């Protein structure tokens, strides 16, 4: 039987999504359901002095006003954002200070809107700067990487370099904004809690609820069949799940808590703003002798999150002298978290822009510059790569994009009021796997059911895993049902870090192979069926110590209106080396979607901090623009065939994040090529184009 892995298979749950039948976390009807609405603080730092619930409780349909004075006590966990309504402290504007519960959502909301909350306000500190007096070096950066690294002597290398580039780049706070706002529907059956929750992995939400409510593993079930995007913001439990479970316990009724679009800007994470100084030193031919990448970023006072912004520099280019550092300041702001390609997305903007500046300074083609600096082993640490095909991506992309015809001189191509240019940038993202469990059962009728706590947040994971299982079991896809999004299936990795398929695919392969061996041993499937279970923890622990990364090359063509500063992007091309591609249709969509978010990052996305009120002021889709269809023209993504037997049985590297890495730099470099003006701060707004 020919395999389905690699084929452009249509999405299995497509039918339920196009007809509106797919049920998301806020869509489940439950008898007796009540609704909770979050009341948010209107100060950025201080204490809640009082909440006067008297009038609210007299309003029609209002069932309860839950505050720190009457909330159920939770067990301690290390994520302060989950310890909701446990004390009176206000750590940022928009923090939850009460939950109003009503028979209908509108009743709860009406009462919440008028709820009198008195505060004892303190002066707040919400602005990030590179000279902030409270900058510190965190113990590690996300997920558990060294804060600083140093190889050789960067200062000596720079001092002796024939050519140097030394510039500061910045990226703003950006909000993930999945189309589905976070939502949880919770109910208790005796002492057993069930939640329908919008997340990137039910396992982590399960673990959080078990700890917070002091329950046995078996007493909590998290169900997440369909999830409307996440992009990092649903990577772990968010506070709406805790509030729904708490209120359901307190009131003895099913409770739903849905966030509004505006609340997403305070309560579920965002990409930290970054200030990045990059210093490059090279010989006259552009061969690096030193690279220094210093990052300043922010966290909150509730939970320390340190984005790994500079890790991009640790793997990209050969240099004898290499240093990277991260400095953090805890401000009175909501907690930043993961957003698509945390670290690599903003880090690549700075370094790939600087490389373009170095190419200009040396008079070397930017693709040739990167080829000259291709390392043999990991630049920081010296470990071998399991596979590395950056040069192949650059060359394939150059051919497709007709790069050889490019005139490198900036600011020389004009079509009416439009200046035109092209740019390139490199891309990378780690290829990792995390321990997961799965079961596969053989049914009497010759079909199979795979169960694992994977999540399909739009990636196509459900479909790809069905392809993987069908190939392993050597049956057509319609003989395999993959059930996901249910914590009762056992622990598994989340849809995050581009680790989904590399983790779930591995355990599904292992479970299928075990099942086939069991069937052989039994001489067939017994009348009552057969079940095989697998766990990849030991396999992953036994992996060789290699550097495993995807690589890619991003190409951009831009047109810049000299009168208005408007930037159009007629063409984006991404060429990626990401191991084996399981589903050509869903994979291409993932890569193009990532590149589109990169375009959006380059030109539009920016959460503006209001210093006086201490809040992101453009906190809705009217003020925070994500790329609309009019912003997107031709975007192509392709990949080179890459075999790597040091990854996992499938040979996949993951594709969720790499599409956004390097896109903004490619566009910024194209804007330079068009205008002759370097853009070192995102987004590249019209005013920045007109007033460089």
């Amino acid at each position, binding site marked *: 039987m020919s395999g389905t892995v690699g084929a*452009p298979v*249509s*999405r299995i*749950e*497509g*039918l*339920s*999504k*196009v*007809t*509106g*039948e*797919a*049920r*998301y976390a*806020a*869509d489940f*009807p439950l008898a007796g359901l009540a609704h909770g609405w979050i009341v948010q603080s209107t100060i950025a730092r201080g204490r809640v002095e009082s909440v006067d619930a008297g009038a609210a409780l007299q309003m*029609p349909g209002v069932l309860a006003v839950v505050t720190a004075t009457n909330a159920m006590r939770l067990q301690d966990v290390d994520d302060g954002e989950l310890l909701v309504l446990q004390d009176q402290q206000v750590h940022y504007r928009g923090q939850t200070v009460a939950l109003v519960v009503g028979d*209908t*959502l*509108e*009743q709860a909301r*009406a009462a919440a809107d008028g709820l009198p909350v008195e505060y004892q306000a303190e002066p707040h500190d919400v602005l990030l700067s590179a000279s902030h007096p409270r900058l510190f070096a965190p113990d590690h950066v996300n997920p558990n990487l060294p804060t600083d690294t140093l190889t050789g002597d960067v200062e000596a290398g720079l001092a002796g370099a024939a050519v140097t580039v030394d510039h500061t780049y910045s990226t703003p706070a950006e909000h993930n*904004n*999945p*189309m*589905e*706002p976070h939502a949880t529907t919770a109910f208790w059956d005796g002492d057993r809690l069930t939640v329908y929750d919008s997340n990137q992995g039910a396992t982590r939400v399960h673990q959080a609820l078990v700890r917070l409510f002091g329950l046995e593993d078996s007493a909590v079930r998290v169900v997440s069949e*369909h*999830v*409307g*995007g996440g*992009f990092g913001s649903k990577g772990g439990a968010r506070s709406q799940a805790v509030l729904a479970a708490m209120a359901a316990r307190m009131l003895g009724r099913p409770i739903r808590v849905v966030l*509004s*679009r505006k609340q997403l800007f305070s309560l579920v994470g965002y990409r930290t703003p970054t200030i990045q100084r990059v210093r490059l030193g090279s010989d006259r031919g552009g061969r690096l002798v030193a690279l220094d990448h210093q990052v300043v970023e922010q966290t909150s006072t509730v939970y320390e999150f340190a984005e790994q912004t500079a890790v991009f520099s640790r793997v990209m280019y050969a240099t004898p002298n290499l240093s990277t550092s991260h400095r953090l300041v805890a401000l009175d702001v909501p907690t930043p978290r993961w957003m698509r390609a945390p670290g690599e997305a903003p880090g690549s903007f700075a370094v790939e822009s600087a490389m373009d500046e170095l190419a200009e300074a040396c008079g070397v083609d930017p693709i040739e510059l990167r080829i000259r600096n291709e390392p043999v082993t990991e630049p920081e640490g010296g470990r071998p790569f399991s596979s590395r095909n950056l040069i192949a991506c650059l060359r394939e992309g150059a051919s497709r994009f007709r790069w050889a015809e490019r005139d490198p001189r900036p600011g020389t191509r004009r079509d009416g009021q439009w200046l035109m240019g092209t740019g390139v940038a490199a891309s990378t993202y780690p290829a990792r796997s995390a321990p997961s469990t799965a079961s596969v059962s053989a049914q009497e009728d010759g079909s199979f059911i795979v169960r694992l706590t994977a999540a399909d*947040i*739009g*990636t*196509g994971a459900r479909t790809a895993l069905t392809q993987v299982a069908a190939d392993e079991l050597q049956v057509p896809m319609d003989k395999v049902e993959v059930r996901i999004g249910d914590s009762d299936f056992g622990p598994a990795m989340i849809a995050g870090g581009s680790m989904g398929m590399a983790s779930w695919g591995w355990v599904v392969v292992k479970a299928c192979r075990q099942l086939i061996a069991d069937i052989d041993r039994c001489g067939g499937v017994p009348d009552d069926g057969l079940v095989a279970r697998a766990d990849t923890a030991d396999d992953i622990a036994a992996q060789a110590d290699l550097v495993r990364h995807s690589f890619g090359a991003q190409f951009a063509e831009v047109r810049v209106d000299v009168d208005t500063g408007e930037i159009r992007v007629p063409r984006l091309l991404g060429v990626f080396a990401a191991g084996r591609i399981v589903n050509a*249709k*869903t994979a*291409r*969509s*993932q890569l*193009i*979607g990532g*590149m*589109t*978010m990169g375009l959006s990052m380059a030109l539009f996305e920016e959460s503006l901090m209001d210093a006086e009120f201490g809040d992101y002021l453009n906190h*809705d*889709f*009217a003020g925070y623009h*994500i790329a*609309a*269809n*009019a912003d*997107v023209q*031709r*975007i192509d993504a392709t990949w080179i065939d890459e075999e790597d037997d040091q990854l996992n049985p499938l040979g996949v590297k993951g594709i969720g994040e790499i599409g956004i890495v390097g896109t903004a730099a490619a566009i910024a470099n194209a804007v330079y090529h068009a205008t002759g003006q370097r853009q070192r701060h995102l987004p590249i707004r019209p005013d920045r184009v007109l007033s460089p």
Partner: protein
Amino acid sequence: MTDPYSLTVNGTDHQVVDAWLGESLLYVLRERLGLPGSKAGCEQGECGSCSVIVDGSLECACLILAAAAVGCDITTVEGLQPGRGDFTTVQEAFIAEGAVQCGFCTPGLVVALTDLLARVPHPSDLEVREAISGNLCRCTGYGRILAAAQAAAKAASDE
């Protein structure tokens, strides 16, 4: 509480009782009539995830008071009628062309393009872009959605 009123949704009359007059059409569809296919993405008419057809006009259900839609003919994603088979040409094209990812924006896009093709059977790319200018998608990058619109137009004319 307002007096009971009746909404005609997908060809069926629904009684709405004990409702508050300020409830949006989206809220009533989702919370009172058991039709959660229309999605609440922004509540300000920016994302189009709640798109429905009201008396032949494409509207954001979040911006209309339900009580103001009394006497109107309302079509939601659940009420789109296939010419033949189990689903419409637009729905089929969305699946085949890979225009669906997380699916949250999909019902609104399917309704918007169904509305377009009813008015303009052979739209230009620009007409497709204009028709979905009120719909945001965070996953796909829009290219496959535009392709699905053209595939649906072609399939409809082939039938």
